[in-house]
């Protein structure tokens, strides 16, 4: 859905909220011994470490791995398995899928016929109206989950409505939101999407509370930070759900958490989500398919299986910076869901890394050369 063809260098604002990537990256130069001794022609001409790093990045890099969706190995080429598989396909597309569409349609009819009257008729009784709207949103999300035959196991204490708390979760697809919303009506912060999703966002999600952001706008971050703060202060607002990765990752890795959720002065309740790929891979590769296609893929699979863990609420420890706090929570979520951490900013999907990292390498090289020049 996003135009992946347009890359621009990230604004320097984004640099401030990342810890030093060099600390995580196993770069050859860092492991190599600091070269000593008098500078010779050999040392200047030998660019092999730098070239090895570049070639290493071409051959495999931890960032692209986060967005790789492995297609399942085919298993059905066999005299008895193949007919069974064909039968399964027919069953899924001709019986199960229409049934699901029917269930979803019924759900929408019930929802809209309750939501619209309640929204307009109870205009004066805000508390009651919001409470009913919340239940209705939870209900339509349950219908959605049913339409993919979602098998969701929730672990841990259910979220309670308390002021000054935010929920953070790892992000695999937009259905993460639906899976969590069917249990608790969260307010959410999302990228504004075009099309029917955008319509849903501006009408129904508005009722549970929604904050929009626009990735491509530089000034947007300050506006969003302010909106976040305003939301968590409000006593009547629904608990806020934030996906600090900022983008969908393939549920094997986590990319770095943005610190916005962690500097609001609230308790942060981590939620870990892990999908079981047994029937379908729930990762929404926004570069490869639109959300509609993704939903259709889910609706024509047997089931979507996942586990949701509500983890212990965390607060900022004394002396901890918001970035460290974010990393600590990421660690908790990654450990629980069995995900590997990578030191990349998810937004690098849409923009180039800042020149700061290349400059640091250049600085190291220059200093090393100049130092060795002095040695006799």
């Amino acid at each position, binding site marked *: 859905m996003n135009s992946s063809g347009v890359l621009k260098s990230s604004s320097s604002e984004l640099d401030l909220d990342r810890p030093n990537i060099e600390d995580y990256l196993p770069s050859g130069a860092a492991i190599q011994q600091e070269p000593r001794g008098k500078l*010779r022609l050999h040392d200047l001409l030998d660019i*092999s470490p730098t*070239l090895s790093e570049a*070639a290493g990045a071409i*051959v495999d890099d931890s960032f692209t791995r986060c967005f790789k969706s492995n297609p399942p*190995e085919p298993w059905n080429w066999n005299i008895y398995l193949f007919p069974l598989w064909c039968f399964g396909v027919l069953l899924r597309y001709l019986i199960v899928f229409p049934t699901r569409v029917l269930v979803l349609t019924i759900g929408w009819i019930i929802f809209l016929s309750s939501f619209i009257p309640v929204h307009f008729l109870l205009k004066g009784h805000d508390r009651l109206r919001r409470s009913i709207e919340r239940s209705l949103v939870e209900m339509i999300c349950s219908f959605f989950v049913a339409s993919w035959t979602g098998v969701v196991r929730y672990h841990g204490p259910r979220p309670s409505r308390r002021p000054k708390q935010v929920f953070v979760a790892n992000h695999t697809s937009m259905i993460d939101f639906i899976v969590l919303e069917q249990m608790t009506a969260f307010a959410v912060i999302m990228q504004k999407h075009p099309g029917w999703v955008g319509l849903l966002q501006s009408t129904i999600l508005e009722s549970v509370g929604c904050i929009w952001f626009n990735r491509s706008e530089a000034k947007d971050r300050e506006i969003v930070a302010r909106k976040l703060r305003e939301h968590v202060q409000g006593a009547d607002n629904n608990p806020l759900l934030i996906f600090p990765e900022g983008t969908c990752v393939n549920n094997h890795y986590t990319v770095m958490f943005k610190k916005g959720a962690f500097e609001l002065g609230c308790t942060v309740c981590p939620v870990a989500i892990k999908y079981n790929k047994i029937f379908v891979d729930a990762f929404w590769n926004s*570069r490869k398919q639109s959300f509609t296609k993704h939903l259709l893929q889910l609706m024509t699979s047997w089931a979507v299986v996942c586990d949701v863990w509500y983890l212990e609420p965390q607060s900022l420890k004394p002396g901890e910076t918001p970035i460290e706090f974010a990393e600590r929570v990421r660690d908790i979520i990654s450990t629980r869901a069995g995900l590997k951490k990578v030191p990349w900013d998810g937004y690098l999907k849409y923009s180039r890394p800042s020149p700061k990292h290349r400059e640091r*390498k*250049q600085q190291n090289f220059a200093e090393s*050369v100049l130092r060795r020049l002095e040695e006799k």
Partner: protein
Amino acid sequence: MGSASSMLTQYDIEEVQEHCNHLFSQQEIVCLYERFCQLDRNAKGFISSDEFLSIPEFVMNPLSQRLLKMVDGLNFKDFVAFLSAFSTKAGTHQKVELIFKVYDSDRNGKVSFKDILEVLKDLSGSYMSDDQREEVLGQVLKEAGYSKDCYLTLDDFIKVLGHSGVKMDVEVPVD
């Protein structure tokens, strides 16, 4: 892309292996093909500059632009041949030859003082002045017995870099 290994036949793999002088094993070639397909987003048969530049780790490298010129638009066979210089099985001569090609950007078979200065500029950025770079290079060249107006050939490179061996290996992660 679909299951990548089913798109490469045994003949294809052997052809690619031949082209890179057997410096990669067949399994490594399959993995490189998966990687190639992953980077080549619309199955054009080659990887464009933009697609290489979507690898953050690559962009961060000071020599990325030079390498990009050498690897941009290559088909899979040539892509593997290019990377074969980084195989653990490749000899010092081949590795030094690649280094020489990186320096010799105008492909005239000789590396001038200016060519080396250009690479030094990529490596040191704004942390060394042009004068400093000239001074350093002039000094080490003199000590090695070359003058500023000298052109270095591949043989010179082998003489300077070859005797202590060049460590330039990249491992292909085989799942």
